């Protein structure tokens, strides 16, 4: 690892943060009734699976987990030439009247979350959308905030925060790159 990289969370730190987030989601929604998890591809989708597993351990019941790809909803699509590859949106259940918990790895400008919310609205009308993120690094450009946060990390715009996953898509580390 280079000297310009700092580890913010290790594997057990991530695990503890996701476990706490899972408890908070259950507390806020008074259990798993009508709760669905939607992860934003790709990091958020892996974390949504993890939170789903945590919630199942705590509550003994599996909540539906889906994934949304936001490429087609990006506000900067025109500035990407060639256009970005399009991932698969995989929501195999209705969102109507559901408490949707949107999951992402790093909350930054908020533009990704805006795109994801627009995508979800095209799939149905949920009762509510809540936001869970592993890292909130600040620098919002839209009026968006998270309901559940693993860790708040003050950063400069020059830095980058990355959540690293192993080949089984298990989160192993959160690093700050200068």
């Amino acid at each position, binding site marked *: 690892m280079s000297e310009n990289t700092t580890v913010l969370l290790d594997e057990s730190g991530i695990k503890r943060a996701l476990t706490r987030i899972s408890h908070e989601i259950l507390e806020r929604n008074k259990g798993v009734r009508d709760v669905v998890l939607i992860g934003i591809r790709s990091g958020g989708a892996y974390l949504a699976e993890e939170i789903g597993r945590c919630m199942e351990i705590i509550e003994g019941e599996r909540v539906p987990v889906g994934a949304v790809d936001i490429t087609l909803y990006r506000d900067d699509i025109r500035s990407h030439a060639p*256009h970005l*590859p399009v991932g698969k949106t995989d929501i195999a259940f209705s969102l109507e009247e559901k408490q949707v918990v949107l999951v992402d790895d790093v909350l930054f400008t908020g533009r990704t979350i805006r795109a994801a919310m627009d995508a979800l609205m095209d799939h149905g009308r949920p009762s509510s959308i809540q936001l869970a993120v592993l890292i909130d690094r600040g620098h919002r450009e839209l009026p968006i905030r998270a309901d559940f946060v693993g860790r708040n990390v003050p950063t400069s715009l020059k830095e980058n925060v990355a959540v690293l996953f192993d080949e089984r898509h298990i989160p192993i580390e959160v690093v700050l790159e200068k």
Partner: protein
Amino acid sequence: MAEFKHKDIIALRDLTREEIELLLTTAENMREINSRAIKKVPTLRGKTIINLFYEASTRTRTSFEIAAKRLSADTVNISTSTSSSTKGETLADTALNLLAMKPDIIVMRHAVSGSHYFLSRKIPCSIINAGDGAHEHPSQGLLDMLTMKDRFGRLDGLKVAIVGDITHSRVARSNIQGLTKMGSRVYLAGPPTMMPPAVERLGSVTVCNGMKEAIQDADVVMMLRIQQERQGKTLMPNAREYSRYFGLNPENLKLAKPDAMVMHPGPINRGVEMSSYVVDGDQSHILKQVENGVAVRMSMLYHVCGGELE
């Protein structure tokens, strides 16, 4: 990860295997949009697409129009019967006039092979070929490959028989170009009068002596339409004789693999190149092809919009 840098899609011959794979993957991932209650994404908002059709078309034009609308682009359709070409305007003049209205993409079908290359040198907007003469029909080739990939999970190693009027078929040419790049084994059959000389130069294809050799143990049997509007009178004695030697029926379909898929680009001449039993049978994937057409065309429109001016 492959990137798509072309502003035009005129022929599958011009694309690499990686670019074709990217177009197919994007189409697979866009298919979900077509099964939603709200079948629309905002991606191409503000883009203007002109469908310029110098030849008759229902399927392809409708499919391109739906694809554009599902991506939120604005579309305008121009067909020959209503265009100035009936008043004698040249293709180049029509294109320059359309260009003055600032379209982002022109989707064109034209009877003259290569007319899209001519156009792409004249005007800077993106051009997608919806069929040019007997040259190529890339969106059909891509949707055919997507339908095969859905069924078998791969294209590599598949035996694909293409049967019929190869000479006049742009569908056959696009499939030959695409499939041979993807590693499929392509076998061609048709009357000698409908087999272009030196067809092997299009790719590594096998020209068969008769239909049986082509469809024997095939994974895919692709039947082509007898294009009476393009043919002279002399290529075949009559439809009944053609049907006897090169028509697909439940009997000769048994030569192919038991789970072989049957395809046809449409419109079908029932009872000529295919019997109705096969058209409506369990092995027919003809309507699946049409369904995949929308997703493939969405993928093409999306990627040419991100292409660079060449």
